[in-house]
């Protein structure tokens, strides 16, 4: 009996806070029929917003994947002073509100900011343009790969890598043939979380992008835009597409991942 009530609580909670709202989005998106949904989704500004979201994600995800793996290797494998500090700093984006991140970038790259002055002198537009949106997204989605890889690397230990060295493998070969295959699921899971975070980012990008329709507007910003312009079904439509993208990525990963990693 207790077993069932526990299950009931867990499932009930999931339904209430996760699946319920998702179902609502789905329901409301089709409120005025599929035709209307298609019209609002094929609006050039909406299409452009999705394009911007995907471009930003396409830059931020690979960057953070490489950084995350390198950072995890540094934290776990290299015993250096301040490894604990690096470990803590990686978590910073999780603790900071994205709006605060956006504001700090504004201060750095603004006309009177430390870097802003230099870039302006060289004719590079950072704020209210793609670069600042990428920087903001990189910042907020930075911890996920490292957070997934660090515990996996710790558990893995370094004996296999040492064995590879004694068998004649260089550091680089050992990384590609031994380390990376052993942590691949942690990396993939980190990439999925990073992607989801990039697609969903709102706060920091809202501050630095300037929110210019058809230019610096991402899909999430577009949702707000539509909502404020009383295009409620449009807002739900874009939300639906964003939700579907995330769900597809998650499901694809669960599908491809073997039930149980072969471990000894």
């Amino acid at each position: 009996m207790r077993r069932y009530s526990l299950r009931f609580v867990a499932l009930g909670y999931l339904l209430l806070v996760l699946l319920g709202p998702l179902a609502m989005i789905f329901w409301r998106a089709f409120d005025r029929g599929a035709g209307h949904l298609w019209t609002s989704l094929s609006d050039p500004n909406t299409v452009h917003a999705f394009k911007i979201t995907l471009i930003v994600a396409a830059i931020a995800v690979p960057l953070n994947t490489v950084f995350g793996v390198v950072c995890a290797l540094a934290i776990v494998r290299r015993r250096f002073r301040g490894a604990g500090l690096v470990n803590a700093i990686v978590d910073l984006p999780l603790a900071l509100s994205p709006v605060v991140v956006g504001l700090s970038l504004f201060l750095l790259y603004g006309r009177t900011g430390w870097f802003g002055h230099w870039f302006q002198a060289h004719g590079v537009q950072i704020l209210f343009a793609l670069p600042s949106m990428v920087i903001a997204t990189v910042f907020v989605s930075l911890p996920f790969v490292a957070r997934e890889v660090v515990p996996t690397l710790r558990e893995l230990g370094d004996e296999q890598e040492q064995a590879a060295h004694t068998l004649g493998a260089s550091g680089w070969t050992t990384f590609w043939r031994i380390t990376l295959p052993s942590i691949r699921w942690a990396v993939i899971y980190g990439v999925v979380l990073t992607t989801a975070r990039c697609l969903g980012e709102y706060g920091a990008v809202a501050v630095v992008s300037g929110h210019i329709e058809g230019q610096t507007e991402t899909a999430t910003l577009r949702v707000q835009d539509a909502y404020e312009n009383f295009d409620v079904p449009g807002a739900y439509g874009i939300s639906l597409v964003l939700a579907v993208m995330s769900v597809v990525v998650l499901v694809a990963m669960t599908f491809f991942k073997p039930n149980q990693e072969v471990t000894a």
Partner: protein
Amino acid sequence: MSIQIRDVSKRFGAFQALSGVSVDVESGSLTALLGPSGSGKSTLLRIVAGLERPDTGEILLAGSDATELAPQKRGVGFVFQHYAAFKHMTVRDNIGFGLKIRKRPRNEIRQRVQELLELVQLQGFGDRFPAQLSGGQRQRMALARALAPEPKVLLLDEPFGALDARVRAELRLWLRRLHSEAHTTTVFVTHDQEEAMEVADRVVVMNHGRVEQVSGPRELYDAPANEFVMSFVGQANRFGSSWVRPHDLRVRLAPGESTREALIERVAHLGFEVRAELVRDDGERFTVQLTRDEAENLELASGQIVYVEPTRERTFA
């Protein structure tokens, strides 16, 4: 390939793992590094492999300085206590790894891997993953993997430590046989004195980061250099101011010229041998080892008073 270890010291934080260790390992020999845990034996082996860097001192391989050489350039095979199997690779790929790294032709790799699978009796297991093997099979795979690139030195770090007694005995014998066929210079670490004496031709006894004695198994037992070696290799009793082995004590029922009176506390029958625990009148405890016939003739029982005489004893300065 000969190995010369010259005045090597190594410290981990506040712990002095090795202090001024010098050992020569002859080419083609089979040497054991024997010592209790924390004696520095594993650290020394890892330094020879290049997996640790000594704070001071040098390592010479085949007469040339290898102290700064990376492990992948030393041409040594290393076997870890916990196998260090590449879990994401099949047994075949594990064994072939060193050859693949050296970019040997695929045909040659396949052939060599097949040979090694037969050598370690893992034919038919080639396509399995390490997780599908038993501990003994995994360690045999690790041995085959270390042997594949034909290393000039084979180093084994407590290779049988994680295995149960029967498998351990089998693998010891197997290692001994392998060495007598291939004559690869082999050094293995163990804390088990019986294993060291059974397998190795030379034993390096270590304690607290220092070498206590280097000799053949027999001299080690018969002519220990000091109290530590005497008590660590084989059983030994303190007997007054000297040391004596349990089988070097004669038990009599009547007092003699040089006997000591002692009370039998316990008699244990261990098949062909009988072990008696005794206590002297001054409170010192010791063990005597007798054959079953001797014990029966004397009718030894606990609570009995006997007279004990050492037939061979040793004193150390």
